[in-house]
């Protein structure tokens, strides 16, 4: 990914004048790993860096304490814009941004109300709602499942949205949800998917980060249908991965870099949902390389498109599960 030359440029920039080119850091509270959310964001960030001739540096962290140290170090190392992401970054960014009012920050996926921070949020539950509706319309057994990462509030954006969508179209459908207990355990995720399959679910959505790979495998083995998250995962196995809930973190990162490079960067909150095309569902909001699986069928997609239009127009309001 990032070449050696970038490192050298950076070092020279550190010593020399910073007029030459802008330097931006993407400081992430976790390791990127195979988490599509971060992978995409990193891609969008780098792409913008190239296009707008900005030095980009991605910094991953292993734990919350390390994240704060990295964030502070990025300030100390004098980057012009520091982008970070997710709820996990909130606390640290609040502190650091408040202490450094002259620095510019951006945070993706959550909101921080500070004059030098631009916040970009997502309404994933809208995407999840669509996915749930599609599942509810497609299921033949009236049982659908979801293998979620952890029993934590964040994940409710997925489980609750899904459930609402499901119930809206198919009230008699049973919703099974199981938690892996971590973001990194495909073996257990697979085991959970098998259990749900055993209970009769014919569609089991993956929402367990790396664990989704286990769910996909179970689907392949047992022949049920599944879906992925964030990017279009249907390409990996169109016969079983029939849908994917989308979240355009790459666009967000790209736009942020672009705005800053072009001098149009503004602090404040921005929010991406279905309306802004920040979240979505394959075939509904965006086309896919892989053909639509017959399990879902065009008819369902058309119905879900209608739901989507209703959400965009405000006719349907999907409740934010975190706002009690």
């Amino acid at each position, binding site marked *: 990914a990032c070449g050696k030359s970038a490192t050298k440029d950076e070092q020279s920039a550190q010593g020399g004048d910073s007029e030459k080119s802008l330097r931006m850091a993407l400081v992430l509270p976790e390791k990127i790993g195979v988490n599509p959310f971060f992978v995409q964001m990193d891609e969008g960030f780098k792409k913008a860096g190239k296009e707008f001739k900005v030095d980009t540096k991605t910094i991953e962290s292993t734990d919350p304490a390390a994240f704060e140290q990295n964030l502070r170090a990025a300030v100390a190392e004098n980057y012009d814009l520091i982008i970070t992401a997710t709820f996990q970054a909130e606390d640290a960014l609040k502190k650091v941004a408040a202490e450094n009012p002259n620095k510019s920050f951006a945070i993706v996926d959550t909101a921080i109300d500070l004059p030098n921070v631009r916040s970009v949020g997502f309404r994933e539950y809208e995407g999840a709602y669509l996915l749930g509706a599609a599942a509810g319309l497609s299921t033949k057994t009236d049982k659908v499942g979801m293998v979620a990462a952890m029993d934590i509030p964040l994940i409710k954006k997925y489980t609750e949205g899904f459930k609402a969508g499901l119930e809206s179209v198919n009230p008699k459908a049973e919703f099974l949800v199981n938690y892996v207990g971590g973001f990194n355990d*495909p073996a*257990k995720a697979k*085991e959970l998917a*098998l259990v749900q399959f055993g209970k009769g679910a014919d569609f089991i959505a993956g929402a367990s980060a*790396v664990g989704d790979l286990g769910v996909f495998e179970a689907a392949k083995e047992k022949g049920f249908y599944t879906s992925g998250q964030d990017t279009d995962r249907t390409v990996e196995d169109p016969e079983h991965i029939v849908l994917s809930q989308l979240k355009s973190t790459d666009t967000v990162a790209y736009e942020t870099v672009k705005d800053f490079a072009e001098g149009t960067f503004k602090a404040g909150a921005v929010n991406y949902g279905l309306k802004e095309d920040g979240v979505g569902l394959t075939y509904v909001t965006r086309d896919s390389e892989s053909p639509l699986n017959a399990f879902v069928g065009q008819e369902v997609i058309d119905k879900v498109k209608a739901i989507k239009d209703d959400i965009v127009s405000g006719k349907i309001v999907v409740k934010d599960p975190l706002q009690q």
Partner: protein
Amino acid sequence: MQQLFDAAMFGSTLRIMTPILLAALGGALCSRVGLFNVGLEGLVLIGAFSAIVGNYLFGNVLLAVLFSIIIVMLFSALFAFISINLKANAIVVGISLNFLAAGLTTFALRAIFDVKGAYYDKNMVGLPKLDIPLIKDIPWVGTVLSGHSPLVYLGIIIVIALQFYLFKSVSGFRLRSVGENPIAAQSIGIKVRGIQYGAVLMCGVLCALAGAQLSLGQVTMFTEGMTAGRGFIALVATMLGQANPLGVMGSSILFGFMEALSIRLQGFSLPTHFTMMLPYIVTLVAMFFFKDRTYAQDALKAGGSSR
């Protein structure tokens, strides 16, 4: 209840148990020669990773497993060398090994596959699922026993073989003598170091199998830290089973069963945190009934104390 204890559940008990059982048997061998191996977690992780690398290199599961065995044996040889020849405290070495494995696999993931977090290739073929001819048609039993990866069956065979080896064969007898009193064993010309090396290397083989079962049997991929504490559970199983193959199997089954049960209990409005706690609580309770202080303490003493 019926829904809870269906055949599939016992099937998953077997699957969940296998990596733990294999690693715990390795741990038992080490204990039997007086080395307390806290590094099981790391060895299994390396096993899981190198199985995937082997599969990537050779495109053949058998070779992949063999490759994994060789790599893990190298690391267990390192464990043996440092704790036997360089007389380091085995517990320190084990803990360091865990760190090393975590760092090295993540590092190598990037160095070899140029990916982060996980390596996954949908064309990769995992271990086959064996359908056992006659048994698979028996209604309940078939669901439980048939259709697992060969390593599941191998694990059970190894238990029996190891039980026989340790308690019936001459070589197993000598192996046990090393753990019982290494100085006495040495004094009658038993090659203590050789046997210790043998046991540790064998532990490496078993951990490699455990790892392969994780990355090629249960799923077909490698993810960072995918052992997720199974090595430590194996350690618990080793001690709970008093380094006795059958005992180790008993405790591994207990753990696999509780884990399978806890998955199914998630459906029943109990907070998941508590269902996940369950296997550990039950293990604690089991310890209450099966305790053999002397054995555990000997193992520790042999492992060297930090004092």
